[in-house]
């Protein structure tokens, strides 16, 4: 039976169709099965913890598996310091704007089929996911933050810190293959 999840921000109820809550292996499998995923990372990744590290460390690990990254906010330097060269530096609005366009891709190698949002402040991320929900019907979205994002196609169901870190660790393991 599908989980019923309340959006992380209680007031953020957009409509009757909300994200499919996912955790465990499903998250990793979704990313692994995507043909042209794109990882969009925001400023919260520099503040959120991932174990004794920062969320940006997880992003770097995931990026090293070959998922192209768009560095939004001021995350670029931190990614470079972790050995990752992002495919682009953009604002989150700019990358969301382009993701609406089915002819656009960050590297010119074909349209993206999965946008993975992580470490973007909740309200801003929610609005960007709303744009994609309404105007990028060719695209699926997933939020890797631990807060339930109703506007995504898939989202974590408001996980506790340790549960969430377990999911992220699993993602790294599975995607690395």
């Amino acid at each position: 039976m599908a989980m019923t999840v309340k959006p992380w921000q209680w007031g953020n109820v957009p409509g009757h169709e909300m994200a499919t809550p996912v955790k465990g292996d499903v998250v990793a499998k979704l990313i692994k099965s995507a043909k042209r995923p794109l990882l969009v990372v925001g400023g919260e990744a520099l503040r959120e913890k991932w174990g004794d590290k920062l969320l940006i460390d997880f992003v770097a690990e995931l990026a090293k598996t070959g998922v192209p990254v768009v560095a939004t906010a001021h995350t670029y330097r931190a990614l470079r310091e972790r050995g990752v060269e992002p495919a682009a530096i953009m604002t989150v609005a700019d990358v969301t704007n382009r993701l609406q366009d089915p002819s656009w891709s960050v590297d010119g190698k074909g349209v993206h089929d999965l946008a993975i949002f992580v470490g973007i402040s909740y309200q801003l991320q929610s609005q960007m996911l709303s744009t994609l929900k309404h105007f990028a019907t060719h695209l699926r979205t997933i939020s890797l933050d631990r807060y339930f994002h109703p506007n995504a196609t898939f989202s974590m169901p408001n996980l506790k810190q340790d549960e969430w870190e377990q999911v992220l660790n699993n993602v790294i393991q599975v995607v690395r293959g």
Partner: protein
Amino acid sequence: MAEKGPLKISAKELTSGLVHAKDVEVFIGRLAMEEEWEPLGPTPFPSIATLRSWDHLLLSRYKPFYAPFCDYCCLCTYGKCDLSKGRLGACGLDMKAQTARIVLIACCIGAATHLSHARHMVDHLIEKYGEDYPINLGSDIAVEMPHARLITGIKPKTLGDLAFLLNYCEKQVTQCLSAAHTGQEGSYIDFESKALQVSMIDHLAMEIADVAQIVTFGFPKGDPDAPLTWVGLGVLDLSKPVVLCIGHNVSAGIEVIDYLEKSGLGGPGETVEVAGLCCTAHDITRYRDQAKIVGPISDQLRIIRSGAADAIMIDEQCIRTNVVYEAQRVKTPVIAVSDKASHGLPDVSELPIEKIVQMLVSGSTPGVFLPDLEKAGAVVALTAIRMAPIRQKFKIIPDPSQIQTQASQCTFCGTCRRNCPIDLPIDQAVFNAKNGNFELLSMLHDVCLGCARCEQVCPRKIPALSLIEAAAQHKIKTEKYRMRVGRGPILDTEIREVGSPIVLGEIPGVVAYVGCANFPNGGREVATMAREFARRGYIVTLSGCSAMVASYVKNEEGKTIYEEFPGAFDRGGVVNVGSCVANAHISGAAIKIANIFARRPLRANYEEIADYILNRVGACGVAWGAYSQKAASIATGFNRLGVPVIVGPQGSKYRRMYLGRAEDKESFTVYDARTGERVWVGPAPEHLIIALETMEECMVWTAKLCIRPNDTTKGRMIKLTHYVDLYKRIYGRLPPDLHMFVRTEADIPVTFKDEIMQHLKEVGWKPWERPSIDPTLLKRLVRV
């Protein structure tokens, strides 16, 4: 109130022996007296359709980007209609058009609010001073109201002229709002055009409101050396009775001060403290700099609960709508003076002053509605004086010793955090306090928006906001900052001095920190950004709540930016123009540059002036904490005039941005007015309005959005120096889009020359064939 404007006669068709005309409108009165101060331009008193082509031009480059807040439309009885994923509503509207419609409604609310404010102000002042009272801003300001001249073609001379202009504004707001009715407009682009129209009107309304109060109340008339005043939660002398004015319309606050002075009680602060919150606070300090500013809107509950105020006067806008309840909790009477915000209080207009004061002091009513401003001034002052010994500054913020007890009910359920607009870890802070650690609670004081949504949802009824304030008491006492009072307009003489270096790019830009206090990480980020750009030689202008919080970070010498930098509209100047309505002076300065410096015709010539500003005036607005519908219309008004705006992450909830796509070269081509050829000029500016996530990102984009096609080589080099320097500091590399801004080698900043040349070589950059042109979007301005 009788209408002060001229008589207007309209006829669909008029036939006489000599003439046959259709759609005739005849004004008898003020227009007949209008002097020919400049040949009339093409668009006097523009209606919705008049500037539509300009809007469509702008929006073909800066396409509306929508982020719907809700999947449904709930505006008519067919609904709710689910518009998600391409579905149409019962009326046929799709999600883009519906979102644009909501944006239009927001802009109409914003414009109507300023306009209604202006109407009240002007009518009140006409009653007090007469409709022939002159509009005189001093010898250094000849172009007294650039928006009025630009939009309507009128050069206002008296308060009566302002009332006439308001008639036009009111008609436009009504027209634009009517387009939002079900079954009217269906195109998102045309909804946006109307949002741009009504937001242009908003700037005119703001100009009218502020100029009216400047000329009659004796506010500073563009004085760069306007006095310093005090701002902060710790500025009040609590040994005295305290009057707290909340809102935006200072007419009533001035009556309080006048009453005190006429009654021999001295000016503000002598026997009675007169302080304010939000924009009315700005304006009482423009009247008397001894008045004080408690802080922005986010401090409203804090100061009420602190018990500092012995009488609260509310006028209009940005008032806590449960102000009466909150004030009652600390035994502070409320006097409401505006029929727009009467809060269910009894109308006591017919009662004598003494009787009203008795009612308030005895507590027989928690407050009164008293729209007679002169009487209200006396009532507020007397009530504060008599309540002070009774109340003894009664407060509901607990003593620090009580924090742990009150926090002990916390179960760490997280409900508070999940209802905090900026997702603050209130749950952790309260839980820590339960265990005796108040540090996080105290830290939250610096970033909390003060909305108390956390308290509303707490299942244990823990007063989290009050606990935050209790934990921060030691800090609050030291929150005293110096801020230059709002100086109002920019002088024509200043425009003559800086027009050339701004247009040629040698002053790298004009940055306007404007708007409200819905900051993602507290107001100190605004202070940090403003100081950064002032130190870099940008002209920094400020208004509203942003102007207040910009003083919250002191430099190494303990000075706020208002003490560190001069108040002149010049390189490295920090210019507080004043309250929300004073924003019109910032957009007005851009208009004046086009007119006074560049000698572009001003009168009813909107398109050409906006085109000039877009292509030549390196200005950028930053509304980092924008929350209100007024902020939506202010920003959109700047956009129509060609000024880009950055909003903070919360600003994404306005649901719409205007975004360019730098790689779409065709959209960034313009006419060279000298030859008529279409020329690519690079993405300058790249966007008209965008929401950003972090302060660091905002600083980089502020520098970038000041770049303009018309920059001279020296100017472009200076602007790129700042863009590159900030980019390297924050991102640790050169901007990847640098090749889109370097036209010739001479544009390259000397400091980074080798590095940039290497980068340009790698990306295959070549010097532009046409680095210097006369850029315009308007074909009619091509001279061949």
